Each structure stands twice: as structure tokens, then as C-alpha cells.
């Protein structure tokens, strides 16, 4: 019923077939983030090249479908973009997740990540969706 809107096909697809999973070299920074309430965790590496271009986002971790799919979508969105571009996506994604389901998502900015809009209605799951994105933000800061 309600959850139908949360478990979008795209999320299940990314969960079953995660993109870019596995830690890779080379990388500029590596971070490890955990969600202490549920034990979900992620290790993330970022490689930034010339002109602030994100060359690779690699990750490994364990967790629920939401947290794992969010990492996979992030990998697709970030790789090949510039750090600046990706940070504005992170910002929009965070705004959506923290909007208690009342924020109209900007699909132009979010792309596939718009599929997570339904998660915002479940306060207990918002942290799951944000885990990889917060790790990415942290990793980018440390790579500079």
C-alpha cells in the first residue's frame, strides 16, 4: 500500500543489480560511514581528476535495499560530472529526503534519484537513503 510508493521499480532494480559496486584504485580519499541505528555501513572512495571532474566513485557496504540502491544511483549520477555539479545534486537530494514527503522534487536536478521521493515519508528510512550521499559529500571534501 503505502510502501508501494517507496519501493519503486528503479530502486529494486538498482538493489538487485548495483552499479559500480566494489572498491577500486586509484582514489583520492576513502571514508567509512555507518548508520548506528540499523548497522548499515558503507565504505566509499572518490577519484577527482582535471577540472574537478569526478572520475570514479567506488563503494562497498551492507544494508537495506534503500541504502544500497541509493549508493548505486549516486555512482551513476556522480561519475563523469564535476564535483560542483554533484554537490548541487546532493543538496537537492538532501532537501527532498528531509522534506517529510512535502517537498516537490526537482527532477531536472535529481535524475534517477527522484525515485527516492517516497522514502521521505518514512522518517526511519531517510537515513538509509542519505547514508551513501553523506559519505560522498564527506569523501569529496577530504579529496580536496
Amino acid at each position, binding site marked *: 500500500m503505502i510502501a*508501494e510508493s517507496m*519501493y519503486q521499480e528503479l530502486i529494486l532494480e538498482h538493489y538487485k543489480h548495483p552499479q559500480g559496486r566494489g572498491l577500486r584504485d586509484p582514489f583520492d580519499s576513502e571514508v567509512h560511514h555507518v548508520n548506528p541505528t*540499523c548497522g548499515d555501513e558503507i565504505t566509499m572512495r572518490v577519484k577527482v581528476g582535471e577540472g574537478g571532474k569526478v572520475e570514479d566513485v567506488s563503494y562497498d557496504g*551492507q*544494508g*537495506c*535495499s534503500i541504502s544500497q540502491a541509493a549508493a548505486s544511483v549516486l555512482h551513476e549520477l556522480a561519475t563523469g560530472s564535476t564535483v560542483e555539479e554533484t554537490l548541487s545534486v546532493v543538496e537537492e537530494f538532501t532537501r527532498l529526503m528531509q522534506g517529510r514527503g512535502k517537498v516537490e522534487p526537482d527532477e531536472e536536478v535529481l535524475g534517477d534519484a527522484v525515485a527516492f521521493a517516497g522514502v521521505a515519508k518514512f522518517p526511519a528510512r531517510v537515513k538509509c537513503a542519505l547514508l551513501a550521499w553523506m559519505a560522498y559529500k564527506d569523501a569529496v571534501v577530504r579529496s580536496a
Partner: protein
Amino acid sequence: MSTEFDVERIRKDFPVLSRELPGGRPLVYLDSGNSSQKPTQVIEVMREHLASHYANVGRAMHVLGAESTEAYESARDKVATFVGAPDRDEIVFTKNASEALNLVAYAFGNPINEDPRFVMGPGDEIVISEMEHHSNIVPWQLLARRTGATLRWFSVTDEGRLDLSNLDELVTERTKIVSIAHQSNVLGTVNPVARVLARVRQVGALMMLDASQSVPHKPVDVAALGVDFLAFTGHKAVGPSGIGVLWARGELLEAMPPFLGGGEMIEAVWMDRSTYAPAPHKFEAGTPPIVEAIGLGAALDYLSSIGMDAIAGHERELTGYALEALGEVPGLKVIGPRDLQDRGGTVSFTLEGIHPHDVGQILDDEFGVAVRVGHHCARPLHLRFGIPATTRASFYLYNTPAEIDALVRGLHHVRKVFA
């Protein structure tokens, strides 16, 4: 058992069980190991006290003060009777089981406690187990850090039983205190208290039980158990939150220093020193959770009126039914004993390839089935089994086989979503 145990009549005592969830789903509450629901009998006693008898306890010289004190202290009598305490003054009200465990831990290695049984320093040892709730781990870690004592623990077998193979090496003359769960909040395992206690007595140590998961579900008699300390909490026993209980042998309470200082725990106060009230008041500083204690008394009255043996029998039937029904869900693995021997009504499991958060969310959203997912405040136990989390169904007197059927139907659907 089921012929005399009228679960439908019991369900009518719990108003929340007949509420409808958003979307018209019925509620299937299988999370009583986390916190139990409350019967009208408890709600009404608390409402009535607040409406007509409320005042502070132990200090007010008026009718309401007397009535309130009488009700509060009579709750202590009820608790004492319920757990078979030899003396009502051995019952200390705390805010929860965690506080009761911390209170006892604080008595060790405390410079103002010179009783040799509580003196603790480097070379002394504290023994717990790998299946403990964090509330029976962290207070002892803190104690070990304060005193330089060593924290040791029993392992857990693959079947989810306490591994006693090294009992004699683990509990030795160096041991000052052994504190373990009476019943595991994840595995459902009921621990062999007598075997551990025999060794504890041999080496002259003290023993504490975290009985949060046993007292609400079966007859527990502290005198028969023979341990030194026992903690449990009200909210898991159809009582309110905010009230817990420490039972300890009277002479130990006498030897132990106060935990919190404040009003009503004193005998006389000067500017530079104080003398303390006798137990239990020595350990009840400040205005206590008055209405919550009275509510707990009503809860224990309610459970007694049904009978703890009958409740334990009902839960045993449910657990047997659940273990069999869950065994037919493909990819489902029970973490804990798969037989009914020394086991309570808590069943934790993993579902292959599906994270417990996803299991719990779909069970709730589509079937109104409330279970707990995560590490259930027992992270070391989950690490021991090499898993981050489990899904846990826990049963109580108001649950039915039909609710277990709903859980199983839900799990089949979860598998379809993530297939």
C-alpha cells in the same frame, strides 16, 4: 491449555489491538519483546490515581499524600509478591532495567563502599555473556574502565545457547560479579542459571540476572533462583514505561552505597555530610515515577489474575506453532534454538538476500504486522553470528496463531517483492 486460556477475552482488555491502521489494515502486534501493549485495567488505575489521588509520596502530610504514598508502597508489595522477594524492602523502583543494572555496577569499585564483596580493581574480573542486551554490557564496560578490572564473557554456541564448556576457567576466584540475561531478547534462549550460580558460589562471587525478558512471561521466583540481584522493567510486562525494578538481597542493599543523591534518600543532612535512609529509599532519590509504579502494580495484578503458568503455556504453544510455520518459508533461518526446550516466545530470523529493514517495512505497510528489525540492542550477538541485523517476532499473552499466519503470509510476499 488453549481450552482454558481465552485469548479472545484477553484481547478485549487491550484497546489498541482492535484499532485499525491507516489503509484499513488490522494491527498484528508481534513486538512485545520490545514493549508490550497495555490493558484497560492498567490504563484505568493510572487514570484514576491521576484524577483523584495524586500527590507526592512519602512527605506530604495530607489526605492525598497519604493515599498516594499508600498506593505507591502497595505497588512495591505487589512487585515483591510477584517475584517472590522475601522482603518488600528488597524492591527498589528505578526508571527501567538499565538503571537497575547501572545502580548495581556503580556499587562496585566505589571508594565509599568498603564491603570486600564490592571492592574492585586491577586483577578482579566481571563476567557477562555475548548474548546480552547493551544494557547488560555497557554498565560493566564502564565499571571495568573505572576500576581497571577485566571484563570477560561467555560465548554463544551456534544453536544460540550459552557456551558453558569453559565455565570453570571463566568464573574463578578473580571473579567479583557475573551478570547474564535470564532470557535472551534475541534468541529466546533461557539460560541455565543454576549451573552458573553453582560455580559463582564456589568462587565466592555475586550474580545478577537481567530478567527483562523473563519476568513478564513466566513465573519467576527470586528466592528459588537464588541469585543476588535481578532487574526487570515495567513496560514489557503490560505496565507503563518509566518504571523498572531492582531486586537485591537485603543485606547487599544495606552494604551498597547510594546511586543518586537527592530528596527522600536521606536520614539527616548537614552542609558537609549526610546519612542515608535504609533501603529501598536510599536508592530512590527525588520524586519517583509515582503513577508508573502504581501502574506496574496494576499490571502485575492483571498478569496474576490470568496466571503466569497459563501465560507461559500459551506462549509456548505460539512459539512451537511459529517455529514450524516459519520453517516452511524458503530462505528463512532462525537465529536461536529451534526446539522449545528452555526457550521463550522470541523468534529472530534472517531471510536470505533481503535486509531486515525491508522485511519489516513491507510487513508493516502491507499487512499491519509489527515486528522489530535491526540488532535489537544486542550488536555483539549479531556480530557473533556474522549478520548485521535480524527480524524479530516476539509473542505475548494476547497473540494468536492467526497472527503468526499473517506474519508468514507477509514473509512470502516480501520474498516476491525482492525476488
